[in-house]
């Protein structure tokens, strides 16, 4: 679907919700100018939105409703049940159109005819016969309650405007002409200002009256004052709820039945949803909002069963005047919302964060204008040195603002760890049951924030780590008791922020990792050559757990070790630009620590020059940079190595590795970048070290997507493309 249309749909649904809310409140409180304005604005904005997507029929229908509301605002029309009903019907029609657009992105072909129907509703002469439904308007009910004996048929509220006297009108005389008058009241007299403050030439009185005459008779008597009068039919036996809906409402219900009966599977969900909304609005409009829940449940049941049955039954019951629910309409499990494992497509953002962006935009505008001034100065032949100073200042300002903007934008994209953490307690409980090892999960730092992508990508690696801890780390209860530990293990899932990183740890209080066994397994499976293995320190051996091929199908239990081992965790974490390490305390447990960037969009790179070209190295992989005399580099077979603090590590000539001709060998000391990637340590020989940059890394796309050794590209200030290296590939 067109992005434009998508935005349109989201916006319209929000506006419809707001308009419905305002209309329903307005019906109960016809004097609520704020709600009236709110509804008017919502209709107006909806109309504008319809115009933007060229949906003329929708704009036409909304325009008719907007006109009617505008007449109420200027006092030409009163808020009546009919008017509210018409406006709600208009919204219902719009909802049906939107649902149709949601499914195919096209403007419904029959929209014009439906729009005609809506426009006609608003253009009709006020209906001669007002349907015999009890009014839900507050003042009329209250008036009836104060005059319980009055056998009134209509209640009227007459609010002459302030200029009535100046026009020579006498509202009381008009009221005296109303036939079969039963009671008269004057509203709010007690709250009047003092006599001195009264303007005798303007009318401040609002009259309420009951009459046994018909609505037409009352309107006729009040004559030209008609637009300042509301006349409502009342039930002489006092307000009671009609269990039957009005004829109009029944017509709409029947239309929903036809819609549901359509028979095609396509768009079924949309039809159920839209019919459910119409039925719900009808009930709300009839003052039966408490019954809407039944409709909602029926909609949910229909949606999950993919048949219209439940909803059709409710509609039939409403049409026959029965309460909508005869029995418990849906079984409890059908009502449980299905948990969606997908990624959250919309983001709820704190208003403060948006405000920060708005403020920054303002400051950026100022900076832009200042720059324009500098351009003017330059054009008018300003001295170069002074110009440079000026530009330098402007640059500093811009740099500050852009940094701040970037921070603010990244802040908008953050999610709390809670989003992913909250799914684990239940999963851990299931693992505990299936493995027979009692354990409980403790989560800490749920509120820690990180980029949306980081948080959402953490689910699988963390699930794997938790399984692994429980399966391999935690001992059986008997062993634990013998070791003096509580029978139930504790697994801590912890998140915290550390500068630009987010640290997530999975810590268990199990037996720890048996390094000797890791060595044995590694040599058995030839994960690394035997001689390398023998030279490795314990932490390095521990790191082999994450090496590809370490865990194999031979280890399969129900939980972990399905051939994809911890190397899957490392791959996932490194794809996010993070690192993973394991710490083990023999007999006391193990901790796997994921160090993740706070913001995935931004990477810090170190620029280096090799073979005359500029490259970027992800800063998180760089341990240190050293300069060493050439004499310290030893040839090892065909390769070269050097010793740094008693550790031997391979030295790779970056230009050579990237297929460039190595520069002429000179006697100068060598610049070496010591890097750690994929668990391997190595040195990269470069011609020159550059600067540290914050960049937005763009991954390789299209034909280049499969290119190895390059993590992505970014644009440099002078327009050159900087290739950022994937060190994991180079050090392999």
């Amino acid at each position, binding site marked *: 679907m067109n992005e434009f249309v998508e935005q349109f749909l989201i916006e319209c649904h929000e506006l419809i919700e707001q308009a419905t809310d305002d209309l329903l409140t307005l019906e109960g409180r016809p004097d609520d100018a704020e709600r009236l304005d709110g509804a008017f604005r919502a209709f107006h904005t909806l109309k504008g939105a319809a115009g933007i997507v060229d949906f003329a029929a929708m704009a036409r229908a909304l325009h008719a409703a907007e006109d009617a509301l505008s007449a109420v605002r200027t006092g030409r029309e009163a808020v009546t049940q009919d008017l509210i009903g018409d406006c709600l019907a208009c919204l219902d029609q719009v909802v049906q159109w939107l649902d149709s657009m949601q499914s195919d992105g096209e403007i419904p072909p029959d929209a014009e005819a439906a729009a005609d129907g809506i426009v006609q509703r608003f253009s009709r002469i006020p209906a001669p016969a007002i349907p015999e439904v009890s009014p839900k308007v507050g003042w009329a009910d209250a008036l009836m309650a104060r005059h319980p004996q009055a056998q009134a048929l209509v209640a009227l509220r007459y609010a002459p405007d302030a200029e009535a006297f100046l026009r020579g009108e006498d509202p*009381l005389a008009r009221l005296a002409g109303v036939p079969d008058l039963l009671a*008269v*009241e004057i509203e709010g*007299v007690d709250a009047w200002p003092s*006599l001195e403050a009264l303007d005798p030439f303007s009318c401040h009185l609002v009259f309420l009256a009951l009459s046994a005459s018909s609505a037409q008779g009352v309107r006729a008597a009040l004559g030209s004052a008609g637009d300042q009068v509301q006349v409502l039919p009342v039930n002489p036996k006092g307000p009671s709820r009609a269990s039957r809906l009005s004829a109009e409402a029944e017509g709409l219900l029947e239309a929903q039945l036809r819609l549901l009966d359509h028979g095609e599977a396509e768009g079924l969900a949309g039809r159920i949803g839209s019919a459910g909304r119409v039925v719900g609005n009808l009930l709300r409009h009839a003052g039966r909002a408490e019954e809407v829940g039944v409709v909602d449940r029926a909609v949910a049941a229909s949606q999950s069963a993919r048949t219209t049955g439940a909803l059709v039954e409710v509609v039939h019951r409403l049409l026959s005047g029965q309460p909508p629910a005869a029995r418990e309409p849906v079984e409890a499990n059908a009502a449980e919302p299905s948990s969606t494992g997908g990624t959250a497509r919309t983001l709820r953002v704190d208003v403060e964060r948006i405000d920060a962006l708005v403020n920054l935009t303002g400051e950026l505008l100022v900076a832009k204008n200042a720059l324009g001034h500098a351009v003017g100065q330059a054009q008018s032949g300003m001295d170069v040195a002074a110009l440079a100073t000026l530009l330098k200042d402007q640059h500093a300002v811009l740099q500050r603002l852009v940094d701040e903007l970037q921070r603010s934008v990244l802040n908008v994209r953050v999610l709390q760890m809670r989003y992913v953490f909250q799914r684990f307690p239940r999963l851990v409980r299931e693992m505990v049951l299936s493995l027979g090892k009692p354990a409980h999960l403790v989560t800490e730092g749920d509120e820690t924030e990180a980029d949306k992508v980081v948080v959402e990508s953490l689910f699988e690696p963390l699930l794997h780590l938790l399984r692994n801890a429980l399966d391999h780390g935690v001992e059986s209860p008997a062993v634990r008791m013998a070791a003096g530990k509580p029978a139930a293990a504790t697994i801590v899932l912890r998140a915290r922020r550390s500068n630009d990183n987010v640290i997530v740890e999975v810590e268990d209080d199990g037996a720890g990792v048996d390094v000797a066994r890791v060595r044995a397994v590694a040599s058995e499976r030839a994960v690394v050559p035997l001689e390398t293995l023998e030279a490795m320190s314990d932490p390095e051996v521990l790191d082999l757990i994450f090496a590809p091929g370490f865990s194999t199908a031979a280890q399969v239990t129900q939980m972990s070790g399905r051939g994809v081992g911890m190397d899957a965790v490392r791959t996932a974490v490194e794809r996010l630009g993070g690192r993973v390490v394991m710490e083990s305390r023999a007999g006391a447990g193990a901790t796997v620590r994921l160090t993740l960037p706070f913001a995935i969009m931004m990477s810090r790179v170190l620029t280096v020059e090799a073979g005359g070209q500029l490259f970027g190295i992800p800063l998180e992989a760089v341990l240190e940079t050293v300069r060493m005399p050439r004499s310290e580099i030893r040839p090892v077979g065909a390769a070269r190595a050097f010793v740094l603090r008693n550790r031997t590590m391979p030295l790779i000539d970056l230009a050579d590795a990237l297929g460039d001709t190595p520069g002429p060998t000179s006697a100068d000391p060598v610049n070496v970048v010591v890097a750690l990637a994929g668990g391997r340590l190595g040195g990269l020989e470069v011609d020159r070290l550059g600067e540290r940059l914050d960049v937005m890394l763009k991954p390789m796309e299209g034909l280049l997507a499969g290119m190895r050794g390059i993590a992505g590209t970014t644009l440099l200030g002078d327009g050159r493309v900087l290739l950022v290296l994937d060190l994991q590939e180079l050090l392999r």
Partner: protein
Amino acid sequence: MTLRIGGDDAVELIGDCPSEDAEALLRHLCAHPDARVDWRRCESAHTAVVQVLFAGRVRPRGPPASQFLSTYVDPLLMRAGVA
């Protein structure tokens, strides 16, 4: 004369009281807040006049001659005046 002001500052509304009486009545009531008002001979009163009575929380001596005023308005004034 539809608005007669007696020696003890009392006001009498007589016959048909048009809207012009409202201002005079208001001025008098402002000057003499305790003035008594009598509308027993009032056959009709413009809304503006009645409005002044309401604003001044006046309980006029009645009932007025007009059927409509005595049935619907006079009781309201008596109630409002008490409050």
